[in-house]
């Protein structure tokens, strides 16, 4: 049975196990020039767990499509995908920090007190105001657009931008 944080094995964040051998205990930057951005260079490795070709030349078309479905975003064109790659590289800078033996923070708020509210009813009764936000309503119900539409398959779209 699968355990762990994400149910999916792919993980865009750099993983400690990816540290190059021969550099024990210190996960240094995996390529020269952090945050250099740009796409297309085959000499550097992108800092995420993917196939070898992805490490070389960025997320595959299948990966892009998968991301688009997950997050319901549309990378749309070469420029969008390039921005994605730049984001990945930017995040790669995290690997410059040696975090061995350091517990990750839960959030930047973690030393604050979590405020506990008393179990009183103090809100609600604003259906009219809320329903006004919706394009379509039926008798005090929200009517959403038809949900979870299957996105058009890759072949049905225009040519997929390749990095």
């Amino acid at each position: 049975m699968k355990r762990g944080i994400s149910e999916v094995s792919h993980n865009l964040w750099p993983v400690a196990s990816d540290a190059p051998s021969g550099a024990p205990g210190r996960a240094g930057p995996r390529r020269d020039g952090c945050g250099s951005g740009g796409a297309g260079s085959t000499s550097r490795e992108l800092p995420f767990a993917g196939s070898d070709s992805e490490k070389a030349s960025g997320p595959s078309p299948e990966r892009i499509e998968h991301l688009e479905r997950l997050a319901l975003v549309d990378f749309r064109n070469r420029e969008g995908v390039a921005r994605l790659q730049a984001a990945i590289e930017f995040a790669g800078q995290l690997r410059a920090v040696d975090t061995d033996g350091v517990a990750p923070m839960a959030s930047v708020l973690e030393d604050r007190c979590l405020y506990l509210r008393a179990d009183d009813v103090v809100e609600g009764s604003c259906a009219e105001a809320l329903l006004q936000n919706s394009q379509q309503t039926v008798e005090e119900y929200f009517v959403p657009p038809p949900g979870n539409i299957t996105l058009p398959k890759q072949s049905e779209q225009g040519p997929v931008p390749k990095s």
Partner: protein
Amino acid sequence: MAAPILRCARPGRCWSLDYRPRRSRALFAEPVPGRVRGQSSAAAQEPRPGAHEWAAVVGLEIHAQISSNSKLFSGSQVTFLAPPNSLVSFFDASLPGTLPVLNRRCVEAAVMTGLALNCTVNKKSLFDRKHYFYADLPAGYQITQQRLPIAVNGSLTYSLGVGAQWSPSATKTVRIKQIQLEQDSGKSLHDDTRSQTLIDLNRAEGQLRVDANVSVHHPGEPLGVRTEVKNLNSIRFLAKAIDYEIQRQIEELQNGGKILNETRAFDEKLGCTVSMRDKEGKQDYRFMPEPNLPPLILYDAESLPVAADPQQVVNIDWIRERLPELPSVTRGRLVEQYGILPEHSFVLLNEDGLLEFFQTVMKETRAEPKKVIGWILTIFLGYLKQRNLAVSESPLSPSSLAELLNLLDSKVISLPAAKQVFEELWQNQGKTPGQIIREKKLELLQNQEELEEICQAVLAKHPQQVMAVKNGNQKVVNKLIGIVRRATGGRADPGRIKQILEKQLQ
């Protein structure tokens, strides 16, 4: 949206959650040594001769709504039957700029549940976002506790019933993997005529929902791929769905197929599970820490900060002291205090209000607990069930029953007469047992002289039987007793009749 719910994940053993059993069954599967057993009328349970034995592993995800006035993260009311979206606050509608604010009562409820289920309560627990897109989840994510929930590693011990009788023939323990606080989604109604969905963000339906995770494997080998069966809205269907899914997986694998890690629904009419998988592939919830909520810190007597605001601090020890008596403890106490059988204690606790009823009767009667229990569990409960009534709807008060049992105990009436009085009391015409007895002349004939006279009269009328007895035929005595009883209109104790007759026959 966002009514507060507790989610318990129970891996490993298969069981059915049953909190009001009338005829209880517990479904179980033992991973070792081998045979899958279940109460199912589906395809043959016996594996082919020579085939490996199969073991099933079932995990239940139980979503239970917390009993609170307001929601987990907002101050909106939690209640049934409110007009759609009338209870929704800006946060529940996921308007930008709104933030979750944790309800203290929900934290206490989670701690109490964790303690009752023998869990380790985590003094520090974290909130996460679980992302998926659905119309009844306007934020696009649900706040839950995936990484570090509020309680872990508990257990629940329960007993199995056999057939219709609740006689605990075996005790089983199931592991509780974790208990976590999480938001509930809204409610969606499908309007098929207009092919649209209607969303009500008050809260989702049902105070209790269960999803079952099922996999099969050969004992000794690694666990198999699991499927998740959702949309189970009754205990009966839960059991059927699990039964079916176990069989389906075994057959699939035996035929050389593979089990997909997918979500399935249970078709109640067909009695089978069907794949719910959409074409988009596996769901990825992209868990991330909830940035708007710091870690939830709980304290105990030792760690309690000195100058703490009591409103802002949840003390595990304080909650532990206030745990109500747990059912297993209550049952043990009842058995010891009243000398009743363990199975009786189960029934007393499993029927709302029955324990209180029994205890009230016990307070007001001299009758033996064993006799009282008999009346309560067979006669009283039988009457309730036949008429589909709850204990609270009983036309008979515990005091009336106590009075009746006292009269029976002091032999004012016979057992058959008592049952007759019970029937009358059930009509609830405001009469006391005493009144009914007098009106219907049900008192036992106590007067020795009167009894002797009647016996004499009967003997006089049946000379042949008298001769038979004097010649040694004892069976005829019973016949004579019967005749005397009829002559008294059922109001004489057979034992006394026998005594008198035997004396008179000498």
